[in-house]
């Protein structure tokens, strides 16, 4: 098999198609959520909406992750909270602060930024992969989680796990030739990009919607947690 040609196809035409599906799908999902609309709010404001939004983000990103024991979600299932946090941290660092991925952004956006050194990114990537495995085990050992697990959840896990795994193997030149691992990684990434709009993974975009709206409501009603 001509892996060079396959890799060129994956990095070229298929990536372009995957990106178009991803962007179009995400735009559709966002528009559908926005188009749900809001009922007119006639109640007078008791506090600052902007203040509520700022507080909501500050607590959600800056405080709760570091004192998780005050959260019900942590007390209910610590594995989900910790492994989920570690996974998201690793994913963020790998995608935005890994050298190879910054070069992808640079190509797409036209500008780049400084990145973390490979051993640091590598450590967090390994942490993210281990977290995903822990989350999967947790999913099947917790009765409630098991009830919440269906085909879409499993598809999400697989389609996110494969790019992580192949990317890690590629960085370490494990088992196969580099161009083979690179091809497998690009294939997994393209599949993920196409899958995202059809899944619950767009929460990376909707998170900001919900936090902004909730924060705004908290602020307006002066009940900022």
């Amino acid at each position, binding site marked *: 098999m001509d892996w*060079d040609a396959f890799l060129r196809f994956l990095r070229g035409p298929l990536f372009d198609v995957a990106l178009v599906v991803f962007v179009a799908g995400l735009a559709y*999902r966002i528009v559908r959520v926005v188009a749900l609309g809001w009922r007119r709010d006639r109640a007078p404001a008791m506090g600052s909406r902007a203040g509520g939004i700022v507080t909501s983000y500050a607590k959600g990103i800056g405080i709760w992750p570091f004192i998780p024991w005050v959260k019900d979600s942590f007390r209910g299932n610590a594995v989900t909270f910790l492994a989920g946090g570690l996974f998201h941290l690793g994913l963020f660092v790998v995608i935005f602060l890994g050298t190879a991925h910054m070069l992808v952004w640079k190509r797409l956006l036209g500008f780049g930024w400084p990145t973390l050194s490979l051993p640091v990114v590598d450590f967090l990537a390994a942490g993210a992969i281990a977290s995903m495995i822990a989350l999967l085990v947790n999913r099947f050992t917790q009765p409630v989680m098991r009830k919440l697990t269906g085909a879409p959840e499993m598809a999400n896990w697989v389609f996110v796990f494969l790019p992580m795994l192949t990317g890690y193997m590629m960085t370490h030149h494990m088992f196969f030739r580099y161009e083979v691992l690179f091809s497998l990684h690009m294939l997994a990434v393209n599949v993920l990009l196409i899958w995202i709009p059809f899944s619950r993974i767009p929460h990376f975009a909707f998170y900001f919607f919900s936090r902004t709206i909730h924060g705004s409501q908290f602020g307006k009603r002066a009940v900022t947690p």
Partner: protein
Amino acid sequence: MGETIEEYLLRHGVSRRQFLKYCGILAGAMGLSAAAPVGASGLPRYLTSGATLAEQVAQALETRPRLPVIWLEFQDCAGCTEALTRSQSPTLVDLVLNQISIDYHETLFAAAGAQAEEARLAAMEAYAGQYLLVVEGSVPTGGTGLFCTIGGRTALDILEEAAAGAAAIVATGNCAAFGGLPKASPNPTEAKGVWEVLPDATVVNIPGCPAIPEATTGTVAQFLVFGTLPELDDLNRPKTFYGTTIHDRCQRRPFYDAGKFAMSFDDEGARQGWCLYKLGCKGPTTYNACATMKWDAGLSFPIQSGHPCLGCSQPDFWDGGGFYQGQSAPLGPPTLSRIGLAAGAGALVGVGVAAATKARRKPAPASAEPTESEG
């Protein structure tokens, strides 16, 4: 059997001492100097064990008949020939090209025109089924093949004729091996590598831009001396020279592993000799011997000199993204218009579906109104 190579050399004034020296050089050129390449060379066992390597070569030269090499050039820049003639191992090149036997080479020939063509035809006739054919340059197949003609005949025609009587075929340089620069998109001449044009023949590919002179002469020497071809990989490249990637043998590899990258050609990282991956190095996917054999008698190679590997020994390297663009980046930057169009189309469909849903629900009671999030 005709005159052996040894007899031929002695008749041309080469002393026995010089002859044995040549044997040592040839053994080195064929990559016979280490244990693994000996096994990978595809030589019979009796040749790869026992006597010293130079002795094995000497034994073979004493019995092998001298065979001519016919060197054809098509859509090329003659860079591979230039690399050979300017190689810093002149003894080897002199030995293989002049002493042992180039019977036809357009660039090196003193003769030209009809005289040169006659020499080629004469050699092909005299050594039918025995000569080694070396091809440099790609073969245009577009139209009627008229993009490259020599003496009024197309490259395709000349190649097929020469290949029919060849004992073995070696394609040197990326153009002859994989199409090279002439094949770069949009490939106006429909250029192809030799092995694509001659699917039934065994073509040894020595890609590179140019090919490493010692890789070409080493392969030619093996055929001349032992009458065998080296073991090949799936792209028909000798494993002796193309068995590992540039990245695997790169002196800057520890910096890659440590995550230390030069960010530009004149920053501190570049001065410190850090990895050139961010500057577009294609070393991880490029199979060649540059990092070990190097150029100019082992003086240096591009990465050592501070330039990223272009991947010139891989098929279609010319269309594999920008030379200075990181290898992880997508090949074609998606244009803003395409992304904008995709986002617009997605949004438009979203608005349409939302409107249709709303219209369908209108007759329903007030409870179907959009609800407010309560947080």
